[in-house]
């Protein structure tokens, strides 16, 4: 009985600790999602997670103007320290050469310090604290997706479409509405989100297809077929490929230029198709497939290629999970696209996002947050859907 209780207590305790750790891990993402509804000022200065309504922001502004001391605690610490340093300086001066105006300044500073202390100590009684009227659910249901709109629509393609609409429109009211939208969007000229997203998807899918095909085939060869110098080739393959692409980036760059794949998607897909982790993974997987099954296939008179194709369903789970992992990896790749792709209409998402971040002094940060949300959405969804399969195929491996 007590053993059971002990076990239950342990389970509750670990669930609690895990909840804390998980919150720390996931909080930035939640914050990112809600930040895509905030203004720059709110992102930088407010400590609230949820975006506030306009009336609330106004009320807070008034409150801040009423009482200058409603600042965060660190701010007042800082001011006090500054004043103390000034007092020290003045006192040192005073001892050397006393002057009346310095004495006056000293007294003023001391007075300031005292008032600062008082504000920090006495609770504000007569002031009505700004109440947040809206509940969690009303904020959630009234989220304003304006920044998502800006991200999706403020590109030259959409603007051209709008322009054509304005010219074709005869109704004055409609025309004014379109004109207003055009003016609003033309302030921000960002990248063509749909195009970039399609690029990224295309590259990731091709990359993943190539890597899965090559690694599965190579793994089959290394695991099931005996040939001379197999060990040597295996070691060589691993040695050559497991060295990270990033550290060989310059020779790779020269090479891609030499073949003439610079500034094309093939320049990203081809180097990525060779994947040492995939080779290792599939060699392990194929080793677990019993030889007898393949022998049956060969006895029936199937060629080696046909045997391979017929054996593929046996490792479908591994194929799927590796494809997913590779998709995620190529979706996230940043360095290779950065040096290979030059023209803006071929950019991938991480690249465009990083440029947006680099260029955004004073631009709404919420747009970047919206872009980042869109960037992580596909991979997260895929991973959540296929989580069980990945886990089981990892567990099957015993080794990595």
């Amino acid at each position, binding site marked *: 009985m007590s053993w059971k209780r002990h076990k239950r207590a*342990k*389970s509750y*305790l*670990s*669930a609690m600790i*895990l909840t804390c*750790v*998980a919150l720390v*891990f996931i909080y*930035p*993402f939640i*914050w*990112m999602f809600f*930040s895509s509804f905030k203004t720059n000022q709110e992102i*930088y*200065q407010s*400590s609230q997670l949820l975006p506030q309504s306009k009336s609330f922001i106004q009320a807070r502004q008034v409150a801040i103007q009423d009482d200058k001391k409603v600042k*965060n*605690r*660190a701010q007042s*610490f*800082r001011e006090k320290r500054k004043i103390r340093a000034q007092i020290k300086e003045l006192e040192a001066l005073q001892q050397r050469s006393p002057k009346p105006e310095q004495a006056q300044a000293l007294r003023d500073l001391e007075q300031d310090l005292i008032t600062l202390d008082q504000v920090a100590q006495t609770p504000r009684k007569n002031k009505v604290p700004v109440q947040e009227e809206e509940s969690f659910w009303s904020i959630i249901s009234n989220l304003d997706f304006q920044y998502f709109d800006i991200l999706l629509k403020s590109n030259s393609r959409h603007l051209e479409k709008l322009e054509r609409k304005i010219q074709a429109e005869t109704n004055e009211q409609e025309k004014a509405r379109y004109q207003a939208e055009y003016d609003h969007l033309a302030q921000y000229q960002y990248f063509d989100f749909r195009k970039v997203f399609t690029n990224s998807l295309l590259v990731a899918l091709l990359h993943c297809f190539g890597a899965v095909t090559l690694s599965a085939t190579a793994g089959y060869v290394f695991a099931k077929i005996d040939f001379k110098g197999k060990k040597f080739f295996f*070691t060589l393959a691993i*040695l050559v490929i*497991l*060295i*990270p*692409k*990033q*550290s*060989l*980036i*310059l*020779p790779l760059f020269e090479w891609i230029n030499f073949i003439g794949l610079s500034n094309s998607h093939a320049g990203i897909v081809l180097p990525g198709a060779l994947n040492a982790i995939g080779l290792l993974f599939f060699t392990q997987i194929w080793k677990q497939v019993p030889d007898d099954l393949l022998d049956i296939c060969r006895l029936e008179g199937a060629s080696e290629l046909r045997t391979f194709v017929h054996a593929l369903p046996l490792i479908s789970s591994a194929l799927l999970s590796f494809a997913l992992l590779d998709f*995620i990896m190529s979706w*996230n790749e*940043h*360095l290779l696209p950065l*040096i290979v792709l030059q023209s803006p209409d071929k950019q991938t998402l*991480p690249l465009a*996002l*990083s440029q947006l*971040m*680099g260029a955004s002094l004073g631009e709404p*940060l919420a747009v970047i947050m919206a872009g*980042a949300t869109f*960037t*992580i959405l596909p*991979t*997260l969804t895929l*991973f*959540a859907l296929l*989580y*069980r399969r990945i*886990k089981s195929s*990892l*567990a099957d491996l*015993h*080794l*990595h």
Partner: protein
Amino acid sequence: MMSFTSDPSLSNQQMSDESFIGLAHYYDLIKDPTYHKALKNTTVYTLGAIGIIIPFSFFLAHLLLACHKLLRPVFSFILIVPGITPPIVLSILFLLFFHGENGILNQFIAAPLIALLKSLNSPWAESLPDYINWQKDPRFIMFALIFQSVWRWTGFITLFFLCSLQAIPKNLEEAIELEGASFFKRLIHLRIPSCSHVILFAIIYLMVDSIAMFAGSYRLLGGSGGTDDAGLLLISYVYQTGFTFQQFNRAAAISMSVVPFLASLIWLLFWRQKKDELQ
């Protein structure tokens, strides 16, 4: 091959051809203080990341094992979320988190902590500023980079550990329990040995990843090494030499200089596997 030829000088780029200069680039590197700094930073970064991630994720895997069966996938998925996010998004988030005065980390944790230290008159708090400028202050850049790496990889390594902990045969667990072994005895004699190959794999994977670490530091420090080169990692240095200063061949030499080290790591992995197979 590129690393053995000289860089055409910028002034007469059309005139001079690349010529074979042998090991001169490598010889230059040995004397280059910036290269030493980059190597040192990369080492600190790698060791720091491994030293934090592996014990922490081993601990988390134990927690996951202990908690309710239905909660396990939820927690491990949440832990993995930073791992499957593009590093560029991570560093955008990080940029805002570590942002000078107004970053969330400073407002909530660092500023009160520093104020507390200062009010206690602790001697080393004197040198600290009111706000830690995580990206500019050379003392804290490394910490920020390591923190980012921990945040990113802990989930994945935890998943590996969880898999191999679950793969421990039940009868071994029961036997060791019947013997009356304490928790630590169980840890040392059963659980750590059964995870040893995962630990080795994780160490090698993290090493390779931290040597190849680029996107995070690129976004966080803008492609340079940060103030005083305190955050200059090897790949950032390659990028800097190659694309900022246009010395491609020298950059190739830098990137080739770590290859022997990586090759020896991989040899270690294979050696270990062979030993396993012999047993």
